[in-house]
């Protein structure tokens, strides 16, 4: 009876709550600005081949070190490659790495956090492993892992995921633990719900909001970290363009051709900025604890 009533109330309330959240999100100023930035950069990355007819690796030594002009909007580098094209193709690599790291951090973080919250025996083992991973400064851990796996795009993705999963797992575990103690979980258990059902139907939905906020910030961190790794020469190897390695190459002649390293850096900053704004908006709307406004 009670179960039915709760179900009925939840059934009528849930879509409405989602609608309210969406409306508040749509009205959130920084979320709007962030979303526009992220969508524009994402579209530029997806449609890079349509926005430029040049090959990102095409070298025209005749045109080396040309400053920004109508023919070369962002100028050219020491091989005469078009920086506008390279920044567009670099966006594909950098944003893709950020996205994959964010998604895999979300999935692994949710899995580890919920398993730890549900099974008491696993809890200590899993969380001590997460503590251990979090003891290394993130960039250093990522540096070590990419060093071991070799300078490839896949290594960067694995390395950054390893570095960011622990925080995600902690966040999910914390919110799943809150649900575990609530009466309706006990009720569900008495009604015969399996562990799997409790984890997927009750703990997971309750962790989605904080995890989504975290994952958005991880997307931003991952773009910054990929750039740092590629800049240090252990990330995405040239000639494939990534924002980090264009800056690394441009650094050697930054005094003569500042434009080579300026534009990819702007790309990194704008995408991280956009994602941080989206994350701020999501946090304000989804986390009622912080939604107080004076």
């Amino acid at each position, binding site marked *: 009876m009670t179960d039915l009533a709760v179900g009925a109330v939840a059934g009528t309330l849930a879509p409405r709550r989602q609608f309210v959240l969406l409306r508040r999100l749509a009205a959130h100023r920084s979320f709007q600005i962030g979303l526009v930035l992220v969508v524009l950069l994402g579209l530029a990355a997806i449609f890079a081949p349509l926005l430029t007819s040049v090959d990102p690796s095409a070298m025209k030594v005749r045109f080396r070190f040309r400053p920004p002009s109508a023919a070369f909007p962002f100028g050219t580098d020491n091989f005469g490659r078009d920086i506008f094209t390279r920044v567009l193709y670099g966006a594909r690599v950098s944003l893709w790495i950020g996205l994959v790291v964010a998604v895999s951090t979300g999935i692994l973080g949710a899995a580890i956090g919920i398993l730890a919250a549900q099974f008491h025996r696993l809890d200590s083992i899993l969380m001590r492993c997460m503590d251990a991973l979090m003891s290394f400064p993130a960039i250093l851990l990522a540096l070590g892992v990419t060093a071991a796996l070799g300078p490839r795009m896949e290594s960067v993705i694995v390395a950054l995921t390893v570095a960011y999963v622990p925080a995600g797992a902690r966040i999910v575990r914390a919110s799943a633990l809150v649900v575990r103690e609530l009466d309706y979980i006990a009720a569900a258990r008495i009604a015969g719900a399996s562990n799997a059902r409790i984890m997927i139907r009750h703990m997971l939905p309750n962790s989605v909001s904080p995890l989504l906020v975290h994952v958005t910030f991880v997307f931003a961190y991952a773009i910054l970290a990929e750039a740092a790794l590629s800049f240090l020469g252990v990330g995405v190897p040239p000639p494939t363009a990534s924002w980090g390695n264009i800056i690394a190459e441009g650094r050697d002649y930054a*005094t003569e051709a500042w434009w080579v390293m300026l534009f990819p850096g702007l790309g990194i900053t704008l995408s991280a900025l956009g994602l941080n704004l989206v994350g701020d908006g999501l946090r304000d709307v989804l986390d009622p604890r*912080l939604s107080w406004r004076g």
Partner: protein
Amino acid sequence: MSRLIAVRVLQAVPVILIVSVLAFLLITLLPGDPAVVIAGDQASPEAIAAVRHNLGLDKPLIEQLGIWFIHLVQGNFGSSLMLNQSVLSAMGERLPVTLSLAALSILITLPVGIFAGVIAAYYRQTWVDTLVMTLALIGVSAPAFWIAILSILFFGVYLRWLPTSGYMPFLQNPALWLRSLVLPALILSLFQIGFLARMTRSAMLEALGQDFVRTARAKGLSEWKAVGKHAFRNALILIVTAIGILLSTAIGGSVVLEQVFALPGVGRLVVQGILARDYPLVQGVMLIYGFAFVLINLAVDLLYTLLDPRVRYD
């Protein structure tokens, strides 16, 4: 209370063990034959065999792990291949540079970041808040190494105010020491200030919304007193947590900035080690940093427990 402290301290023991095993795995997980990877593709079979023997890679994995732990207990964190030096002494020589950089940046970060966060919270939803938070957001979004190159171009090459690279030990010339570290420390603190200001603002807003602040206001305390005395003290707890993160990001950030500014610190050592496939060196440095941060995190946790009675669950 003392029981909680004991639990926290005991929890750090398995973490230290796991950190050691993770660092151990760095070499053993190298794809293919670790000895070949370390010696290089063109190395002669004798050279590969020598590497294998020196690093103990010819022994079974469990035995290697046992030896690894015995060495750790003896304070042996391995030796660098490229420097012919123990990791401890190589790191010891360079640690003052990295710690100076980290300490200087945190000294800049703490007052500026907290002040910015408090101001933004106090003048919430005015242009002051918007301005401060926009700057903070740029701080956490712009890549430090990129800002570093731009500022070297501007302050070093164009204005010629500051050296573009290099380092002077404090004991030899404190003025030049400061000059060589000012720019990297400032850039390192950009991210940190942004991070701390954002964190402080949320904490302050949360605290300002709570009953005890309303009570303080109601009993006639001025807004500044209500904010300063009550809310800020509450937010102090959050700042304690921030210190651990600030230290960790300072060490992480120093890896990139030491490279850009050619500062002879631990971060530069690690990058050189990776590019030279000096895996024992990288392994040793990660291990020592890992241990250090287990202890730092433990200290933060304990301090946090002391400051916030609400954390004392059983």
